[in-house]
């Protein structure tokens, strides 16, 4: 009976989400778009197959892979200006798997300006910018093959005299058939708002991510389709774990991403080292920035 109710809730929310109104105003900047683990980024930003605690940020249903407890840390700096950091922890309990995640982006010393009498601009003071989110996640396995998860998400933005807050719900489902695994994510399933203290409002636009992983011998092959602002974005990834050194992996990917309304493409690369439940991952991608034309990402996972 409980299983039937859970099925109905999931199917209803997914269906409502698919027909949700696409509001044509500014969409809130989602921190998680940068990526939440170096491994996922190196695979072309494929989401849903993390075996670490950062699955809280991707697909909460993925917590079914956590045996007892896990922690993840991720960091990157973009253009020497934007500092991204995240931490997530998960734990197995008798009533299911629980996880908590925190992610932030910080920028410092932004000039607050004025105009002088000779029409020149000057700096009055400096302010900082901080965008952060909390996720509280729960995962429940319906059976050996089907796993469901949900995350309550709280978004916040603070800069100058501006403060904004909003909440929404992420839903996830993972279907696991031996070598084939499928992941479905409804991010911001209710298309909520972030409201600001200056009467501004931004939309937490619902996003749907469908991805698959197929394991073939020493290779893992990934594919993903993402729905973002009326565009469908594709990603593919490949992971190679040599049989001789199973704690080492090489990852590569190709992803499409959206900049304003234009779809752009990028190649990604990465390596990983996973020894006794402690994993170190690095990802690289080319940037189109004039000065900082390389992006580097690092993450550490601990699985107990």
């Amino acid at each position, binding site marked *: 009976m409980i299983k039937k109710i859970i099925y109905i809730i999931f199917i209803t929310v997914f269906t409502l989400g698919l027909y949700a109104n696409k509001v*044509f*105003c*500014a*969409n*809130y*900047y989602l921190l998680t*778009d*940068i990526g939440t683990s170096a491994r996922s980024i190196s695979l072309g930003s494929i989401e849903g197959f993390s075996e670490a605690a950062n699955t809280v940020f991707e697909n909460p249903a993925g917590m079914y892979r956590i045996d007892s407890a896990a922690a993840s840390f991720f960091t990157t700096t*973009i*253009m020497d*200006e*934007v500092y991204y950091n995240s931490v997530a922890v998960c734990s197995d309990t008798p009533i299911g798997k629980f996880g908590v995640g925190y992610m932030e*982006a910080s*920028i410092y010393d*932004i*000039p*607050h*300006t*004025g*105009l002088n009498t000779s*029409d*020149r*601009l*000057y*700096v009055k003071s400096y*302010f900082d*910018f901080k*965008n952060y989110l909390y996720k509280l996640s729960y995962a429940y396995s319906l059976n050996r093959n089907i796993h469901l998860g949900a995350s309550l998400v709280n978004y916040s*933005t603070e*800069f*100058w005299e*501006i403060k*904004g807050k909003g909440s929404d719900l992420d839903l996830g489902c993972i279907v696991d058939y031996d070598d084939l695994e499928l992941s479905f994510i409804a991010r911001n399933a209710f298309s909520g708002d*972030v409201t*600001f203290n*200056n009467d*501004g*409002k*931004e939309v937490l636009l619902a996003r749907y991510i469908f991805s698959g992983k197929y394991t073939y011998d020493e290779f893992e092959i990934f594919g993903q389709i993402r729905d973002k602002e009326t565009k469908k974005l594709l990603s593919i990834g490949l992971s190679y774990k040599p049989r001789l050194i199973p704690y080492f992996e090489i990852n590569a990917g190709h992803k499409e*991403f959206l*900049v*304003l*309304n234009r779809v*752009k493409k990028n190649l990604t690369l990465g390596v990983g080292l996973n020894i006794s439940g402690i994993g170190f991952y690095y990802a690289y991608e080319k*940037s*189109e*920035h*004039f*000065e*900082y034309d390389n*992006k580097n990402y690092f993450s550490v996972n601990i699985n107990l």
Partner: protein
Amino acid sequence: MNSLKTMKTIYMHYKKTLRSIVYFALIFVTICSAEVKAEYELPNYSFIRANSYNVTFNADGDAAELYNLRRTETEKTYRVLSFGYKPMHNESIVFSESAEPDYNVEPKVIGKPLFYPNPFRLRENARLGYELSKDMDIEIRMYDMRGNEIFKSNFESGTLGGLRGYNTLYLTQSTFDFYDLPSGVYFFILIHAEKVLARGKFAIMP
């Protein structure tokens, strides 16, 4: 006696013509030397330089040297409240400063390039102000918080954006193809000859 008579006859005969020549010369001298009070609205692109230097300006086919430029209260334009009219027989329409040539001046951005207001709402527009040490080609690029390029534009030397002195450019929604940018911090760089001369950041409010 005869010669005086002859001169008088000639004068009487060419009286009108001579009088016209004298009047014309007097008018010519008056026009050339007098300071003419007038109002003239310079085109938008010229005001920055006009504020700092004397300029040559083509008026009705003749170039004239303008001076004593004064700024009015209007935000976008400068008004010439008085100027001296001096024919220069310069057929080209050029805005050249009377200051020293700037070949030996190092290309640089003086001070920090800034946005005003900052932070701002995109639909309410903002201005970018920066000062260049000389006329030069300038490329401006802007990036979002993920390092993605969202704007790129070139400003030729001698035009607004690439002028010696203070340059003011306006940022509107059309700058980003009317895309409603999310609130957050954005970054920009000023490039000249493949070298970053200055960088800055601005914040957009919801």
